């Protein structure tokens, strides 16, 4: 009798273990398939960016509007935050370097860490918060309202008309705004280097130029472009996965934004790894 109960318990445990493995496997497969689909769609969009046929009067109009919404409308707030945050940050970093007796390293810290690492990250976070969320919601609302069906009915390619201009805008905006943030930081640097280290603008510029590493600039530019691609592509991809129900909008927006932040972290870590190598 005891043996019988023991066998039954073992069978039950085995069944539960099998069920757990099946659920985990199915979940992992689902995630892997979904990730593979997203990457293959991203590759298709990336390929289209280089096709001349993608760009016509309609896509150019969308591109100009998107650049206005993303880069121009944000300018006053972006500049204010950059001046405020950038100046305080530069002030703190310079003071810290002086206290640690690392004054001669301030050029390397400014160019290698703050300009090439921090400014793309800061810019991409601001643009994601403002435009990424807006694009995600816009796409989801278009899907719910059947506006995507309208485009398909009139033989307007969704990738060409909706994705390409927004993704190109993302790349242009992140690169330009990141450059602007770096300029503001370096501008603040002139002021703080005079106050803290007592060096003139000429010497400051010389130190910066000597500390500039061409490969760092290239990595920073590529990183900005990759950031720009994914912070617009992922919100559109998730937005287009909305169903025809209004309640699907918050679901796809939250999934999209979480994925965008995950992508930002992954890109940032990969870029830091390339610096370590």
């Amino acid at each position: 009798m005891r043996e019988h109960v023991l066998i039954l318990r073992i069978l039950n445990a085995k069944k539960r273990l099998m069920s757990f493995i099946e659920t985990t496997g199915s979940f992992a497969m689902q995630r892997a398939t979904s990730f593979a689909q997203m990457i293959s769609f991203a590759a298709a969009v990336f390929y289209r960016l280089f096709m001349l046929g993608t760009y016509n009067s309609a896509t150019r109009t969308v591109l100009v509007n998107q650049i206005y919404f993303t880069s121009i409308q944000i300018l006053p707030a972006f500049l204010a935050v950059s001046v405020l945050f950038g100046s305080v940050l530069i002030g703190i970093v310079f003071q810290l370097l002086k206290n640690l007796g690392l004054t001669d390293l301030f050029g390397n810290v400014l160019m290698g860490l703050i300009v090439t690492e921090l400014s793309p990250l800061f810019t991409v976070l601001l643009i994601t918060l403002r435009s990424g969320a807006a694009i995600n919601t816009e796409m989801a609302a278009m899907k719910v309202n059947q506006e995507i069906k309208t485009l398909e009915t009139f033989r307007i390619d969704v990738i060409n008309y909706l994705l390409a201009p927004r993704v190109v805008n993302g790349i242009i905006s992140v690169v330009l705004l990141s450059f602007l943030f770096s300029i503001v930081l370096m501008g603040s640097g002139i002021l703080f280097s005079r106050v803290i280290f007592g060096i003139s603008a000429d010497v400051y510029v010389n130190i910066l130029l000597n500390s500039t590493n061409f490969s760092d600039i290239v990595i920073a530019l590529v990183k900005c472009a990759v950031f720009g691609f994914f912070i617009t592509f992922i919100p559109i991809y998730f937005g287009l996965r909305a169903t025809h129900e209004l309640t699907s909008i918050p679901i796809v927006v939250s999934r999209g934004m979480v994925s965008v932040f995950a992508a930002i972290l992954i890109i940032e870590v990969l870029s830091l790894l390339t610096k370590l190598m």
Partner: protein
Amino acid sequence: MTFFDTEEKLSRAVQKFLRVNPRNAAPVCEDIPLLSNQEAWLNIALIKQYHENMSAQASRKLVFNWLKRLGLESVADKRNLALGDKERFLVKLLRSAMVQNAAILINRPFNMVPQLKNIDPILQALKTIDDLYSSCHIYDYDWMEQKYGALCR
């Protein structure tokens, strides 16, 4: 004008129409809405801008001329939700007419403009823009025949 006795038959006919005219089908339906993030004139101009690469200025001029002919210049800068039923229908009609050699299909017009008493205003609008399309078909249910008056006798 074609009438159907069931929703299924009508829906099949619409699908067949879209299949038969893959390059120039231009449906005016309730479930093919205007783009809500674009003004009325941009919704119409989009077809010319996308398919014929017409510049934004040229397409704007063209669309405003057509809207003027339909007496709709005042709605050009309005968006979908700000339009009345009849205005929305006419903007959709004009958008469809922008397709090259357009084969317009108006699916249940009285569904889109419920306050219409008969088909005359729609026929009048079609007549105003008759140089823009190559054919026009209207699909509706049997029980709406009376609204089409003498046309179906």
